[in-house]
């Protein structure tokens, strides 16, 4: 049952239904805005006084790096898990 057909049979949104967010150019804009905000958050980091007891927190950009690396690691590890844990959708069916 699994993978017997493409789940997304390459549907093309009809032109009259296309909205602002369907334009790749606008998606790029959103992504650039995200890059900009991320950049800004890192730049202002040294000016934020942190009160926590852990030294690591006081390194420049700790939260940003940790969030990014953590999530990339999460996804790569989860991808690896698929090798061992993924079974067809009807695996448990009798």
């Amino acid at each position, binding site marked *: *049952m*699994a*993978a017997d057909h493409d*789940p*997304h*049979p390459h*549907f*093309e*949104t009809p032109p009259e*239904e296309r*909205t602002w*967010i*369907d334009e790749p150019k606008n998606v790029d804009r959103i*992504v650039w805005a*995200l*890059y900009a*905000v*991320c950049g800004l*958050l*890192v730049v*202002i*980091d040294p000016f*934020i*006084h*942190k*009160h*926590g*007891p*852990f030294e690591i*927190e006081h390194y420049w*950009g700790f*939260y*940003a*790096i*940790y*969030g*990014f690396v*953590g*999530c*990339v690691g*999460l*996804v*790569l*590890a*989860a*991808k690896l*898990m*698929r090798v*061992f*844990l*993924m*079974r*067809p*959708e*009807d*695996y*448990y*069916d009798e």
Partner: protein
Amino acid sequence: MMSELNPGIILILGALVVPLLPGKLLRGIYMLVLPVIAFAYLQSLPVGEMGQIQLFDMTLVTLRIDKLSLVFGYIFLIATLLGVIYALHVGDWYQHVAGLVYAGSAIGAVFAGDFITLFVFWEITAISSVFLVWASRNSSAMASGLRYLIIQVGSGVILLAGVLFYFRDTGSIAFNAIGIETFAGKLILIAFGIKCAFPLLHNWLQDAYPEATVTGTVMLSAFTTKLAVYALARGYAGTEILIPIGAVMTAFPIFYAVIENDLRRVLAYSLNNQLGFMVVGIGIGTELALNGTAAHAFCHILYKALLFMSMGAVLYRVGTVKGSELGGLYRSMPWTTAFCIIGAASISAFPLFSGFISKSLIMSAAMKEGHFWVWLTLLFASAGVFHHSGIKIPYFAFFAHDSGKRCKEAPTNMLIAMAIAAAFCIGLGVYPDPLYALLPYDVKYVPYTLEHVVTQLQLLLFSALAFTVLMRTGIYPPELRSTNLDTDWFYRVPGRHLATFANRFRSLTWEWLADTAVRGATKIHDALYRHHGPEGLFGRTWPTGSMAFWTTVTLGAVVILSYL
């Protein structure tokens, strides 16, 4: 005797009237009024222990009102009301009855002052809630519901065993701090831990919740696990083992959430992850941490219900919530999309949303007590939950590649329920003071500091950045139709083989026994037949002459013997 009624009873008894009411409208109004009455009644009750019943030499306290039970009682009633509104379109009365009895028993358990009352309500939650799974009326829901019921009732049985030991040790059944030093304490912790979906005891949650009906899952998400959180907070505050247990709970389900295709199952994994934060709070056990647990449970019930409602609406309209089949639904369901994003922002603890003002308390408590590794794990889990619940859920359902599916917007009652939940999520995020005032201890906590807002935004936006980069480079794993093995595999595959084997062994043994018995019986029968049958020595009809002859011989023998 019982002068004060546990508010849970109002819902349980009230639910029994539902099938008798004619018409959807009357039934709907009645079901809306029921939690409102319970709420008003709860408001009128004083703080303290009430409703004592003497049972042999035990005193049951059927109603205990204090700050801890009140927070949970209030949020359970709000969740009941939201669940009722969300389910108003459902014609099937038995789902309504099951839902209300379930909610009522969870509320009853929260206000239970002793273990016996707790046990009774604990088991009613198990038995009533399984009908919300079975109401899907398909074979996989039936099987899943049965597994769920066995595990839930099992938790109750272990609780009862623990309580009996506890009573033998202490002579009391009052439900207060328990501790894990005694055997009884360990048993009760396991019972609570099953319902709280501790690691390795968790899989009933991801197994059953996505199998329940559209409206059933919303109800299920609110009560069972948060009842367990309440029970843990009552019995095991400051029990250190809960800190690592909770930390593991926050982290490992998110790996599964990333690769899971059924979006309601993704939410079940993130529910598990959120429970971890609460369990860590209980383990730390300081006033700040326990406040954090209570506040987080409160906010979590609302945003988790909101997320399940939005995915329920998709399931209701499209017929599936598989990420591999969805995409582009924002065109058809703009309101549902907006509400889902609000729920997603709340669970991700974005500033100005509810998760931010509650999770911070637990994070701060972990920091303050110097739990470095735990704090690091919670931080990772916070980034991860944004990744899979905050981005993945709305992205794959409503945006991503247009699946070409077009449908109607969710029914009005569903939209109203989502709107109320969303309003709570934003309202609490912007103005947390009313919630802080409800918490068990005084709150001296300011969530909105520059440091806190900036560091949280750094964590979350760089998590979003990671998603974007992985998506654009094609590294992000696609949504695939699949089943991912979890601990339920052990009882669904080797467990089943073992059961099949045991069954075959039993039937073979039985056959052998029966065979041997029949052969034995046949032998006896044949022997009897041989001697007493028509051809047998003792079964023959003898001629009269031979009888006279033998009589003469016998008499002759007697005469001879008497002369000797």
